[in-house]
């Protein structure tokens, strides 16, 4: 570092320390960041509490069932419990299993769509679609306002901080009359601007990284094997995104216009990238891929056989269903015992099979929307960044679509467990309780493609704005 550089940086530091307004802004953003970390934690903690309560309920339910095998039924209630525990005719629609999408350790830093989607379900063998579409309670006003999480602070507020610090880097000198003094120094104007930009970049990116580290450490240990890649991706994202805004400011400054002009252009860009582009994309996607959930609503209707008391009809339904499921191996007494429960089970399962197409079409349309919107993410590094962060913390739409697929698979396992016993006329034994279906969800590793690509796109945008700035700066000084 040569003498001139040292002098310049020292001067910049002194100017910063003396400027109360700038210090207040830095402090304010820091406080907002801290609040955002706290708010995110409190939201996700509440979800963790709900999950805990759900799991406890399930354990209690099933321990009641297993206990009923051990103690001889004395009271009527115990007898009923034992019936539910051991007879598939009751058990298939009474036993409730919890399927849970636990929050990623870092979900609190970018809540994404997690406040909007259900993250826990209690599934029985009944029609899947009857159980799937219930909303979580939420105040729509607050849903609309969105979450004040760390991703919001980084994506919305840091660019403003960068704009506020940089818009006058060159023009302020001109306006206060010190430019001429700087010009006669041996150091080139380009170098001076560059150095000042680097100084503020270190300062502001440093603040962003500090807040991120505080968030990452308070939400989960980033050194753990499953966390260090997400944590690293987060840190890289923060650096690249801030660098983009510095690059943009550099480009704007390179036009050497007045401070007010720079501020207007920068504010215009902020508005364009954070509000206009995403809002336009959202409205286009809504219109281009129309979706009406009204068509799905019908699937939740509770229906039954037209003539429940007609045994022939019941038998037909059972046979129709078994034709779809040769794996269920019905017993010889299939059409002699428990005809009503069998017919009802067959009926709801058939209904699921028939409505699967409708649901599939709907999810495909949602996925298409998602794909289309993602294709235009490069238009707004901010929307891109939001998408990257939501993918890192697994709070994006695709995680929830993946969860829904896993729910359907799990429901299939539940019905297999009970239906094989119901249609095979076998009771549920105590030892069967060690083989109950368990919800599992495969890791969706496709998200990392989105994340690295997204980061790549922001990096490319950053390089572009810097290059444009450099060209302009060089072109003018010759």
């Amino acid at each position, binding site marked *: 570092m040569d003498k001139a550089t040292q002098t310049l940086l020292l001067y910049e530091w002194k100017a910063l320390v003396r400027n109360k307004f700038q210090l207040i802004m830095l402090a304010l953003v820091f406080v907002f960041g801290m609040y955002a970390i706290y708010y995110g934690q409190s939201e996700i903690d509440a979800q963790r509490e*709900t999950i805990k309560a759900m799991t406890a309920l399930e354990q209690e339910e099933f321990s009641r069932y297993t206990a009923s095998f051990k103690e001889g039924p004395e009271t009527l209630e115990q007898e009923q419990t034992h019936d539910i525990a051991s007879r598939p005719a009751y058990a298939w629609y009474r036993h409730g299993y919890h399927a849970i999408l636990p929050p990623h350790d870092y979900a609190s830093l970018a809540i994404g769509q997690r406040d909007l989607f259900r993250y826990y379900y209690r599934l029985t063998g009944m029609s899947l679609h009857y159980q799937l579409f219930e909303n979580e309670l939420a105040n729509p006003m607050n849903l609309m306002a969105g979450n004040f999480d760390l991703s919001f602070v980084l994506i919305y507020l840091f660019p403003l901080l960068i704009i506020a610090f940089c818009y006058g880097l060159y023009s302020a000198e001109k306006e206060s009359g010190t430019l001429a003094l700087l010009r006669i120094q041996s150091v080139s104007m380009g170098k001076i601007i560059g150095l000042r930009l680097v100084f503020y970049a270190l300062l502001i990116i440093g603040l962003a990284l500090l807040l991120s580290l505080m968030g990452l450490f308070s939400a989960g240990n980033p050194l753990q094997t499953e966390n260090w890649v997400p944590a690293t991706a987060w840190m890289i994202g923060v650096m690249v995104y801030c660098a983009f805004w510095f690059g943009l400011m550099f480009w704007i400054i390179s036009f050497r216009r007045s401070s007010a002009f720079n501020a207007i252009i920068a*504010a215009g860009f902020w508005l364009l990238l954070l509000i206009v582009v995403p809002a336009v994309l959202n409205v286009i996607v809504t219109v281009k891929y129309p979706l009406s959930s009204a068509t799905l609503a*019908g699937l939740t209707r509770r229906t039954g056989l037209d003539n429940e008391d007609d045994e022939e009809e019941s038998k037909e339904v059972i046979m129709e269903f078994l034709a779809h499921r040769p794996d269920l191996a019905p017993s010889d007494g299939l059409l002699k015992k428990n005809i009503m429960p069998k017919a009802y089970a067959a009926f709801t399962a058939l209904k699921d099979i028939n409505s699967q197409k409708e649901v599939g079409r709907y999810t495909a349309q949602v996925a298409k929307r*998602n794909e289309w919107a993602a294709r235009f993410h490069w238009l707004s590094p901010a929307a891109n960044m*939001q998408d990257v962060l939501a993918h890192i913390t697994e709070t994006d739409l695709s995680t929830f679509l993946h969860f829904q697929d896993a729910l359907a698979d799990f429901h299939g396992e539940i019905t297999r467990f009970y239906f094989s016993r119901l249609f095979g006329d076998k009771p549920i034994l105590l030892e069967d309780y060690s083989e109950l279906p368990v919800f599992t969800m495969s890791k969706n590793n496709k998200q990392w493609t989105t994340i690295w690509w997204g980061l790549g796109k922001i990096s490319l945008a950053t390089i572009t704005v810097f290059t444009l700035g450099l060209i302009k700066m060089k072109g003018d000084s010759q």
Partner: protein
Amino acid sequence: MLPALIHIAKKEIRIALRERLIVFLGLIIVVLLGVALYAGYVSYKQQKETIAQTRSEKRQEWLHQGDKHPHIAAHYGTFAFKPKTVLSLFDFGLDAYTGTSVYLEAHYQHEFMFRPAQDHSSMIRFGELSAALVLQILLPLLIIFLAFASFTRERESGTLKLLISQGMSFHTLAWGKILAYSLMLSVILVFFLLSIGLLYGMGVTSEAIPDTAVRVLLLLLLYSIYLFLFIALAVWVSIHSSKSRNALLTLLTCWIFFTILMPKALANLSENIYTLPSMREFKAQIEADKRHGPEGTTPLSVQKANLEKEYLKKYKVDSVQQLPLNFEGVSMQAGEEFGNQVYDHHLGRLRKLFHQQNRMSSIASLFNPYLAVRHLSMALSGTDMYTSIHFEEKVENYRRELIRKMNKDMAENSEYGKFYGYKAGNDLWQQIDDFSYRTPMARELLGHYHLELISLLLWSVLLITLLTYANRKIKPLHG
């Protein structure tokens, strides 16, 4: 004084039109407004058509469900769909975040399903482009760009001194400028009004809102006041700033704080202060109360026993079999009413929480005109919380009426203990009218928004006073 005022206004407009950047931004905003209205219109039409179609399908399904026991019909139930109101094409409001359909059946109140925002990636949280968004967020920015230098530029270039020395009053100067900006913005508002008029010409109407014309006029008034407030604020800040740069920074900070930071921070704070139960807890509490009876009420079994005694006494018989009606229907209805009572209690508590949460931003709207306008705009467009609650109440009443009719038919026509012995038919299904919804009148809705209305009044008075007061004190010179 009047000619001078007009003179100033003319000059300001000429200067503004010379600024290519300003004209360019103005054009962009007009284009965005057009796109927003068009997209709003297309999506309104799409939604309206699908809902109308699905609604008639469900109606046919109900009417032609064949002969069955009324209680089974009550269980199979039917659906209600939230209609898109015609003004939602202007302000989407909460439409993406409130459920759109609900299943109506006996014994249970189902919650509304499907929030449209769930069908989007997290980008939806940046907001959707609507005309309201353009008017509420983008136009104020244009105003800031137009007016931040209104006084500082004159002061920096020394023309302010010249103007004052020629006998131009400060007052005239300020109001002349305000008049100029207002005229320019009203061009955009007129464009907006023309688009609305065009849509009407195309025959876009909606039976859901009874007083559309009044609402459109009120919306126009609302946005005129809002834009005037921003103009007045920008001019006032410019009067008080020593440099253009400072005026711009102050105004931009206000803008960010009012439109981005404060609404979000408040909503989140309210979420922390008044915590909502999870759906699981909510449902579990209702179930528990239905089983054991809420505190201070008679348990359902006792109620039913009492009811039985009452009926036996009334008809002077000694067993339910001898009653001239099927007591099962009566008892079923008693159960239904008991369930409703429990549900109302819990829903009331939940709604109170919502209300307390939203009240925070209502109170805050006294300090932030953007919040006031956002709430009022949604209310007038029929996409606000109160319209949504009103709709949910109407749906629930419809459900209760439907179940009541089913139970009544069961009591009158079926026999005790012979569930499969009786089947009702199309005659009974016809007795249930199709569900249709009308929003409350605008006046009634505005009754929920006193604070927001007061906010706009206070801000107008405050800014006009400040401008009048400031004019007397300010020196036309630097610093």
